[in-house]
């Protein structure tokens, strides 16, 4: 149980392939972050996510200079996107498949093809599940005696605009008090698609899902109260999407809501008011 504890990175793997072969390193480890299946041959990078890494240095900045948010800003706005430095060489591989774990084995057996990935990054276990089995997997992780993930520590999302058809990763962080172990569950969904809600299983997921909706525009099916939470209700766009530029300020919203009035310092007016009142 303690193998999952924070301070135990997998170092054997890391030292083995330390930056010797950049292509290999990038191919294998992007699988963990965004890829589809870890059982594919590691030399060949998976299609979508490593496209970005394979490009020459200059083109990386191009990716981020994206359009302003959907609710079109006024014409005089020139959004400035945050530019990223191009990736140079890749570091060591920090991800490996989970082996020798009875719970993960049982889950794989039960859900079969629905579990597309079961890896450990720096000793932290991650399960990637298909959308149709997401809630069922969560339910069994919560109620299974050996798992007992009674606490939903966190729920968040990551936007991968280059991955067509599965632009968002919804990531669920679970913690088992009885077993003292953590588990991450990932489910990929397409842009505009609804993700099943887990608020029935963990009441604490309520505000976390609301925040994901607020920041990414991902809707949750079966959520009792899906409203924006941090931003104003009529805010245009969803800021944590990659196409939402950082230098862009929505003056339209500010003009509409935070109006200031010219104060007339003509004292005679004040006198008139007072006179009327008298």
């Amino acid at each position, binding site marked *: 149980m303690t193998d999952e504890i924070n301070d135990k990175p997998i*170092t054997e793997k890391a030292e083995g392939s330390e930056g010797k072969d950049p292509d290999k390193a990038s191919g294998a480890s992007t699988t963990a*972050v965004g890829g589809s299946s870890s059982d594919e041959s590691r030399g060949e990078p998976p299609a979508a996510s490593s496209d970005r890494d394979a490009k020459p240095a200059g083109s990386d900045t191009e990716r981020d200079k994206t359009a302003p948010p959907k609710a079109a800003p006024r014409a005089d706005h020139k959004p400035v996107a945050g530019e990223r430095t191009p990736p140079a060489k890749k570091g060591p591989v920090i991800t490996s498949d989970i082996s020798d774990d009875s719970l993960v084995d049982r889950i794989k057996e039960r859900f079969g093809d629905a579990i597309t990935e079961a890896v450990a990054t*720096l000793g932290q276990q991650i399960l990637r599940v298909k959308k149709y089995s997401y809630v069922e997997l969560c339910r069994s992780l919560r109620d299974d005696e050996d798992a007992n993930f009674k606490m939903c520590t966190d729920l968040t999302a990551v936007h991968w605009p280059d991955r067509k058809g599965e632009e968002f990763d919804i*990531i669920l962080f679970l913690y088992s008090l009885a077993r003292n172990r953590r588990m991450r569950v990932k489910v990929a969904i397409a842009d505009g698609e609804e993700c099943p809600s887990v608020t029935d299983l963990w*009441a604490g997921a309520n505000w976390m899902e609301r925040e994901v909706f607020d920041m990414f525009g991902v809707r949750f099916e079966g959520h009792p109260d899906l409203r924006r939470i941090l931003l104003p209700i009529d805010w245009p766009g969803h800021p944590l999407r990659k196409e939402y530029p*950082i230098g862009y300020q929505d003056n339209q919203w500010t003009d509409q809501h935070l109006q200031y009035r010219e104060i007339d310092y003509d004292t005679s007016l004040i006198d008139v008011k007072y006179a009327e009142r008298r």
Partner: protein
Amino acid sequence: MQEQPAASGRETLFDSEEMVLNMGPQHPSTHGVLRVILRLDGETVVDLDCDVGYLHRGVEKIAESDTYAMITPYWDRLDYVAAVSNDLCYVGGVEKLLQIEVPKRAEYLRVVLTELQRIASHLLWLGTHALDIGAVTVLLYAFREREEILKIFEDFIGARLTAHAFRIGGLWWDVYPEFETRVRDFLKILPGRIEEYETLLNANRIWLQRTVGIGVLPAEEAINLSLTGPGLRGSGVKYDVRKAQPYSAYPDFDFEIPIGENGDTYDRYLCRMEEIKQAALIVEQALDGLPEGPVMAKVPKVIKPPVGEVYHSIEAPKGEIGVYLVSDGTSKPYRMRIRPPSYINLQSLKRMSIGHLVADVVALIGTLDIVLGEVDR
């Protein structure tokens, strides 16, 4: 005959109607800019909704265009009364991703500073919580001791509130020569001062009436609501990240995790008071065993973690604060997620308040110990 119209007249005079009351965002007891919308039946809370986001700065978005080292100061400003604890979480996450071994001396000094910060944060909580309920004296006493800690911080870091003490890989500087004696002097006076607060509150009849049995949260519900920190421990769940999944130098020290029994506001108060005492014990042990040596590990000038992701969490004064970093191999994180304890704990306010009086909502906001800088990020 005479009774009939009188009775109906009384009914129309006192017709029952639910009232909606806005509390905040400029209300002193909400500890910042929190707006609570209450639906009241008389003085009893029927429904409650929190409106947060007034302080939203988009730290997670800003992080995507900053280098790893540049992000650290933003963490000071999340929970601005426990800046050092926040920093420990973030630098710990980056160090884990980079697989950096931090020198022993730096780890011990980090524990000293973080536990002092825990004491300072709990003292601020104690003062304001008591002030909200009506005991003004405690605020003045608690701030007196907090000031001592802030002075120690100021002489080391240069800042009192947004104390940016840690760097990725250790500490920027070693502590000044008198640091140890000053901390020890503070630890000498602290137990007597805690006794003073306890004399004022523990058996105070008004304090007991305002806290005992208020906002009772059973353990299962607290877990289901993702509550962490003293709020969860007050309900009798022994979960503390320092013990459960130790980080930094915490495995080297002996300390207890106080838990409550009833899960009410009074138990949560007792838990925090005991945590102050335990934090003082940890600081003492860390100073006794403080090793010599460097305080900074070898860290590359440009930090480029390997492609991958990491989740790292620590026990902040408010609860479990966590960071989830997704690296794409560049010098800037692809995504940084903050797990904010205040934000997630605030969810349980609704569950705790329903059925209580309006005045108890003030006590319950206090007992959750929220900081709006962290709720809104």
